């Protein structure tokens, strides 16, 4: 479902590249991606979502090799394959909930899929909010709307970036439950990027979640220990 090998990314002007150890995630499993600031987590998320082009190595998501796609094809692929719940939900204040759900189709240059929107709003229990603006929603309601938007085009990969940021314990657990339920119901792979202990604890107990930790510094005694502190390491190899 998700695999990369020999993946290296270097930003213009950066002294050292970011190297990612090879990795593969089988079908039916989800991924918890951990990593502190500077660990290369944001870069990996950008590569996974096709916002950054693969410079070196291979990256395959849902059977598509992203390094082979042109920027235009990457845009189309992202719209069709990926559902994203960003750290900040970014629901458009200019639009109602129903109109926010029409955005994925508009972004792809297609007409709004009202039947799919109705189905998701019913499934996520937000049907009565269709005419409201984002500022009229509670935190929990806004999360559901953002999740519905991510699921509108039936993604194969659902990507949630720091879904618990600025949430209390109750909302954090609620959000995780929503994401896992949605992934199960829609049959898609869930990738959660987080360094929140509550999320790590909640997902660590699940057998269907693989955990990958990105570290900014090499562990002592590592056989492949390079000089750069920017190099990425997989501390947990039990990810396949």
């Amino acid at each position: 479902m998700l695999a990369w090998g020999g993946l290296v990314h270097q930003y213009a002007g950066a002294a050292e590249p970011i190297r990612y150890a090879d990795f593969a995630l089988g079908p039916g499993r989800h991924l918890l991606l951990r990593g502190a600031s500077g660990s290369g987590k944001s870069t990996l998320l950008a590569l996974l979502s096709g916002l950054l082009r693969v410079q070196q190595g291979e990256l395959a998501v849902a059977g598509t090799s992203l390094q082979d796609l042109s920027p235009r094809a990457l845009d189309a692929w992202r719209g069709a394959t990926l559902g994203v719940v960003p750290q900040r939900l970014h629901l458009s204040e200019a639009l109602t909930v129903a109109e926010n759900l029409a955005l994925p189709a508009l972004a792809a240059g297609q007409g709004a899929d009202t039947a799919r929107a109705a189905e998701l709003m019913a499934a996520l229990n937000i049907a009565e909010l269709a005419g409201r603006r984002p500022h009229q929603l509670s935190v929990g309601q806004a999360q559901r709307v953002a999740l519905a938007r991510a699921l509108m085009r039936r993604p194969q990969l659902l990507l949630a970036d720091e879904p618990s940021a600025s949430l209390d314990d109750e909302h954090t657990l609620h959000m995780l439950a929503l994401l896992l339920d949605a992934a199960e119901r829609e049959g898609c792979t869930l990738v959660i990027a987080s360094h929140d202990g509550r999320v790590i604890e909640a997902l660590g107990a699940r057998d269907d979640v693989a955990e990958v930790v990105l570290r900014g510094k090499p562990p002592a005694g590592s056989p492949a220990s390079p000089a750069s502190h920017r190099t990425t390491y997989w501390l947990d190899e039990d990810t396949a």
Partner: protein
Amino acid sequence: MIRLAWRYLWSSPLTTALNLLLLTLGLAAVTFVLRASAQVEAGLKRDLAGIDLVVGAKGSPMQIMLAGVFHLDSPTGNIPLATLDALKRQPLVAQAVPLSLGDSFRGYRIVGTTAEYLDLYGGRIGQGALWTRPMQAVLGAEVARASGLKIGDHFAGSHGLADSGGAHGEHPFEVVGVLADSGSVLDRLVLTDIASVWEVHGDHHDAHDADAPKEITLALVRYRSPLAAVMLPRWVNAQDGLQSAAPALETARLMRIVGAGTEMLRGFGIVLLVAAGLSVWVALLHAVRARQGDLAMLRMLGAPARRVAALIALEALLLAGLATVLGLAAGHGLVALLERLLAERQSLRLGALGVSDAEWLVPLLAGGMALLASSWPAWRAYRLDVTTLLQAPR
């Protein structure tokens, strides 16, 4: 995308309304100038009606032309009736039509002339008939409408071209005809036989003047050959007490004088448009900054960068489209107001016009300005750093 751009546009209603107002005012000013100048020119050309030369008493050629062709000024004086015969005898003259001015009815000029004057403008009798003897009058369409006079009614003219002159109550005119609306100067004139003017004014003359040579005010001349344009004015100006005025030349001079005002108004319109353009530019830049999260999300949802940039340009174009419609409507409304004002003052009637060629400039100007104003904000939207925007809390 259009609907989305529309919703984004009105997400800041006050800013959008202000920009719309600025753009509309600028476009309305430009429309007004383009349309009014085209209509004034069309009106002047129509009233020139193939008249090549106006001959009057010595004085200003511009005054003679304004009095003789457009009936907007007082004539410079009278000329002998014999001048008309002398002009008709000139081989270079195809037609010479006499006009006798001096009286008015409720501000509308009473013009003593011949049936040839109507032919110059292709005037048609709408009701009744042309005069067959002195003291019968044919009313222009606008005069009939304004006065309410009908065939068979009588009225008395006032001395002078303003309504304030003494009435010629003892010499009433009988209305025998009403002209069909022609959109020309004929609409605001009262036409009568040239002898009517002599009859009315005979009473003002002393007894010893009764046998004095008859006079007319002006003669409208059409040339037989282009050569006349060189020869005839010289001949006329060489005659004692006569002055020629070439309407085409005088009208061009008039348009140059009026043109300075027109240019000023057009410049004002352009200044308004530039101000509106700057305002739209600032508003769009602000919108891109304020909505960069929304735009980044669109990119994340699969929208290509060019579509996100097009969304910004589309917002400006929608604003420009709306301003174009409102600006054209306001510009046309102002011209209609001017037309009404001129009609109330019994002044020049503007030429009828659909959409003038120059008016196509208005949407082009608005569209061009919108694209120019949106180009930098659209480029900023095109270059958004999506990953940073979606990850960093603001």
